[in-house]
């Protein structure tokens, strides 16, 4: 009799994953009696749905220029002083216009999660941690990635974290990410 193995291994799968691949078919059968058509199985085909899209960051563009220059930019309302960590040019608190300001590069974890799955575009990056970052003197938060901790249990709400920037900017909000502060 085989000895029971104590090393934990992944279990063999119990079912095949649904695939989006298939076989090229150029013809399908049809019954001679048209009355049988309502019982016919559905025909399912695959078709592509790809587009290249020109996206403008519009009035938010300076934020991304800031990231590529290792600056974290928010906005501050000239009328009521409300300060936005995720920038917006119009203050929703008072209707005033805001100005660009530099944010501190150290903040705290307001909340977090670890994503083990994700939208298809991000699936190959899983698992990864998302955090909402809070900064002293700033009224709103910033969504970012947290790198460094291995497990969600290693992340604590309130822990100090510091911004890091990609050397080669991608002009994406992930040009900035956070790591636990020293």
């Amino acid at each position: 009799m085989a000895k029971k193995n104590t090393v934990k291994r992944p279990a063999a799968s119990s079912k095949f994953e649904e695939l989006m691949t298939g076989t090229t078919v150029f013809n399908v059968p049809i019954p001679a009696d048209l009355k049988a058509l309502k019982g016919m199985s559905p025909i399912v085909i695959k078709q592509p749905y790809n587009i290249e899209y020109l996206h403008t960051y519009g009035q938010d563009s300076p934020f991304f220029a800031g990231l590529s220059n290792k600056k974290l930019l928010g906005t501050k309302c000239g009328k009521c002083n409300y300060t936005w960590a995720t920038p917006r040019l119009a203050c929703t608190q008072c209707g005033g216009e805001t100005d660009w300001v530099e944010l501190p590069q150290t903040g705290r974890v307001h909340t977090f999660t670890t994503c083990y799955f994700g939208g298809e575009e991000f699936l190959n990056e899983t698992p990864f941690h998302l955090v909402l970052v809070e900064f002293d003197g700033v009224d709103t938060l910033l969504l970012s990635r947290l790198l460094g901790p291995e497990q969600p249990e290693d992340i604590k709400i309130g822990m100090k974290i510091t911004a890091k920037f990609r050397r080669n900017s991608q002009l994406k909000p992930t040009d900035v990410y956070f790591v636990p502060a020293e």
Partner: protein
Amino acid sequence: MVSGGVSKFAKARPDATFQKMVKESFDYAMNDVPKLKHSMIDGSVASYFSDHFTRQLMAGIMAVDYLGLCPKPNKRIEGGGATGGLCFQAGWEAIASGRMNVCVAFGFETMSHVPTWKGNEFIALASDVNFDYPVGGFYSGYYAMMVNRHMHEFGTTVEQLAMVSVKNHMNAYGNPYAQKRRKLTIADVRNSTMVAYPLTLLDICVMSDGAATCILADEETAFKLTDHPVKITGVGTGTDMMRMSDRPHGEVLLAPNEKKSDYRNLKYPGVHSFRAGRSAGLQAYKMAGVTDPLKQVDFVELHDAYTSSEIQTYEDLALCKYGDGGKFVEAGYPFMPQIDYGLKLPKKGTIPVNPSGGLIACGHPVGATGLMQAVFAFWQIQGSIKKHYGDGELQLKKANRGLIHSHAGTGTYVTVSIMERGW
């Protein structure tokens, strides 16, 4: 409301296009009020969430023509996960304004046309594409961040979340329309695959294909069509800022049964609560004359896309105070008194929440969901659950006043409608 119908929600309906699914739910609703002739319908409102899932622009009119409702008025309603709830209210508006005597509100979604993770990508496009989506767009991740803050702020536990999953899956056991009918334990929920910490696969609703229809009429017409119409006595719609990071830290919008001193240190809504849900609830309560919802509402069908959002919603709807949502489920309040959940509950259920099984068990074909809730609530109030489910186990003894709640991610649009026995 005089009638309703739901196509059975399924993971995939390759046998039917959206028009046919809508027709199934419409025919069911029409057959349930034989006195309603097709010619008496004045118009319709259509709801579906995502053009990406449908890959057919102007799908609304295609369903309208399939139902034979041309050339009467129609428009499409859309507002993320709350699409169905908004559509229900748009139907109510058509009647309340006097524009129509009979209005058909229908909705659908066909989510099986792409693999699950592509579907999650489509859904995540309903977050700011400048600042949020590109960081790792994933709705389960967004709700997981919210519940982590809720747990930090109030001490809510993952076992309390799991109790919601056990409850809703078990309720669905008696609902033949439900997509997932399973008897679960708290351990099953916690041991299932982790999706976004701390939410597991069984804390989260699934993708579905399906359609639902509600038929609404003015009071005079309603009594000509049925002896048991349900009256819509309150409607409320709330909104909040799309980016969770922008949610302010201000004061709680107080319900009539709350005092300012209840929330001395609470920064509201932050990311732990849904201001839109509270706002919608307060509007609907005011209109319906509800001052103590826990006592005055008999049951609730709410938008449990996540077990966590069900707990957050108890609080928004003032069924309990902010922070007490976890304890509320633990005490047993939202369970059905007649069902054995295999849990030790200190109290018998007093205000069943999601007696149908909710989104977690029934499925969530987005544009149909809010209307599905209205249909299930309508049957509860009519006392016709046995007729429509084929089994009366889920029929509540007292179901004179129900509340339905539809919610768009991450609490951006929320609708609350109050439905009451109309006869």
